[in-house]
């Protein structure tokens, strides 16, 4: 789809088209100013900020504990991971130990969240390209995960999942059984999605060779997560800079080769399988004991700074926490994976058809709440 013959006789003029901010395929309020030569994209400029809420500024005016729910609302698709990254940083600065049971449950919930996030990505990415059935299937399974979230956290989306030192409370009765049931059933569903897409001719035509980026260039553009691994760079923070006890679990980091939209799709689908592996190991080894360590009621980290980076479903999510010794952060900088990844859109869409822009926005898996904060 991406190879177009240059017009020889007809003379065309560059046309500027606004995509968004209210466009179903921009996954939120993203405005892309496209310069088109016929159907071919000459240039694309992203205009963002429609959802800016000043969360970093708010953080400076709240206590360390009061900050937590705000981070749910940055990347609302992966709220559990967001809170996790921040709390790991605070706990590190405070020297708080989380008991094993708490650590394991956290990892289980974060991995469930990764699956839920990838499911939402697959659903919307597929429907953008035109596969309606996958959309319905993915939402069906995501619903099961959201029910688990509701049982444990009391909320489906803005979960306020964890507390300083561990979890708010232990798992409800029967929770492990429900998770086990999900882990048993879900691989068959992944096969189902793959049956619909992986060798589908239309899917291949729309994704193969679209938005190609080499590993080196992906690093230069600051891409992380599946967009980077789709280009074959082995960088997963769970392996590269292990946190929270991920080094105790066995899992593989799926890598692509060609760095195109299709490889990023394959990488994400395989990541769901790897997440299931981690969850299964948690279920097998879940120890008894408390879920929350000893944490002071008022959190006052010592003067200093710490960068806590985690592998969120979308890539490297970092919290750079600077403390001046008071009960409020001097500064919390959120390093959002999609804000930094989105700037590569300009590079990725150049020379493609306008219809491919939609596929490429989808493959970057952006969440505008996080881009704009």
């Amino acid at each position, binding site marked *: 789809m991406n190879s177009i013959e240059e017009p020889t006789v007809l003379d065309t003029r560059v046309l500027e088209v606004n995509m968004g901010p209210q466009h179903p395929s921009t996954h939120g309020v993203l405005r892309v100013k496209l310069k088109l030569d016929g159907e071919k994209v000459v240039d694309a400029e992203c205009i963002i900020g429609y959802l800016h809420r*000043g969360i970093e500024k708010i953080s400076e005016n709240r206590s360390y504990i009061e900050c937590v729910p705000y981070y749910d609302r940055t990347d609302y698709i992966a709220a559990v991971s967001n809170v996790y990254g921040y709390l790991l940083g605070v706990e590190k600065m405070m020297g708080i130990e989380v008991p094993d049971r708490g650590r394991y449950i956290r990892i289980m919930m974060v991995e469930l969240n990764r699956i839920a996030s990838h499911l939402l990505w697959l659903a919307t990415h597929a429907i953008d390209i035109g596969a309606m059935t996958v959309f319905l299937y993915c939402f069906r399974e995501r619903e099961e995960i959201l029910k688990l979230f509701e049982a444990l956290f009391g909320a489906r989306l803005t979960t306020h999942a964890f507390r300083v030192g561990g979890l708010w409370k232990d798992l409800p009765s029967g929770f492990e059984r429900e998770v086990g049931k999900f882990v048993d059933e879900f691989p068959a569903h992944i096969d189902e999605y793959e049956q619909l897409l992986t060798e589908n001719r239309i899917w291949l035509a729309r994704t193969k060779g679209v938005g190609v980026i080499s590993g080196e260039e992906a690093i230069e553009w600051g891409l992380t997560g599946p967009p980077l691994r789709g280009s074959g760079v082995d960088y997963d923070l769970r392996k590269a800079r292990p946190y929270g006890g991920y080094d105790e679990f066995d899992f593989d980091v799926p890598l692509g080769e060609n760095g195109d939209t299709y490889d990023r799709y394959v990488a994400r689908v395989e990541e769901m399988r790897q997440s299931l592996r981690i969850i299964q190991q948690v279920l097998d080894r879940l120890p008894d004991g408390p879920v929350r360590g000893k944490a*002071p009621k008022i959190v006052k980290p010592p003067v200093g700074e710490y960068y806590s980076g985690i592998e969120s479903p979308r890539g490297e999510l970092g919290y750079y926490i600077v403390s001046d010794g008071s009960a409020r952060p001097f500064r919390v900088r959120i390093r959002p994976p999609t804000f930094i990844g989105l700037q590569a859109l300009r590079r990725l869409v150049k020379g493609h058809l306008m219809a491919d822009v939609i596929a490429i926005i989808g493959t970057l898996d952006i969440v505008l709440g996080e881009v704009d904060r």
Partner: protein
Amino acid sequence: MSEEDKTQEPPKSEEGAVQESESQEDKQSGESEEKKVSTDSVKPDRSVTTQKTAGAPPTKVAKKVAKKKGPTYEDLVDNALLNGLQEKFPKGVLSGQSFLDQVTYTVTLDVLYDVLLYLRDDTDADYDYLVDLTALDHLDNEERFCLVYHLYSHKKKSFIRVRCAVDESESAPSVVAVWKTADWMEREVYDLFGIKFMGHPDLKRILLPDDWHGYPLRKDYDIKLQDQAWIGKHLRITRTPE
């Protein structure tokens, strides 16, 4: 330390009092008050601080209070990268410190670009990935802002931080030519802190509207403060000033 306290003073007076009263059982609750009230408890801390910050830049002074327990900044000893940097930039590299196993190098503004370029290109360093770029506002410091670069080397699997003090009147060199990913990060710092980057291809606001006035992440920008003129013009909301 005292400078830092002053900056934090206004917001503390509102809610800080409430929080402190909640935490009567908590051991750490009284500490910030202790610092101000009883000079005795401060003195030993201060002696440690001055010793350690002897060669450190002004930005660091505010950041360092040695506590009874908990992590502290420690000067790097026999660090290959620090030695290499100091050899190459004898005057520009001010310190290399480690805090909670994260290494921070502090450099001066005039060598900042060269240091970052060296860190990317030198085979001993090879920091090919700019993780993050942000700024801090130390309102009362001599040099007000502090730029913070987080770098990662995919080959060496090493993570470092580079800090550089920037005065309000100064502008920083843009590193878009070094790492393309710096483009939006620098625009964001410009948008929220008002630090200008020389040589940036398209330095304009990114999160806030183009015609907004003020830089929200500065410490003297109150959280309730808004650009009333902008709101009146674009949203047709007029409010009486409080």
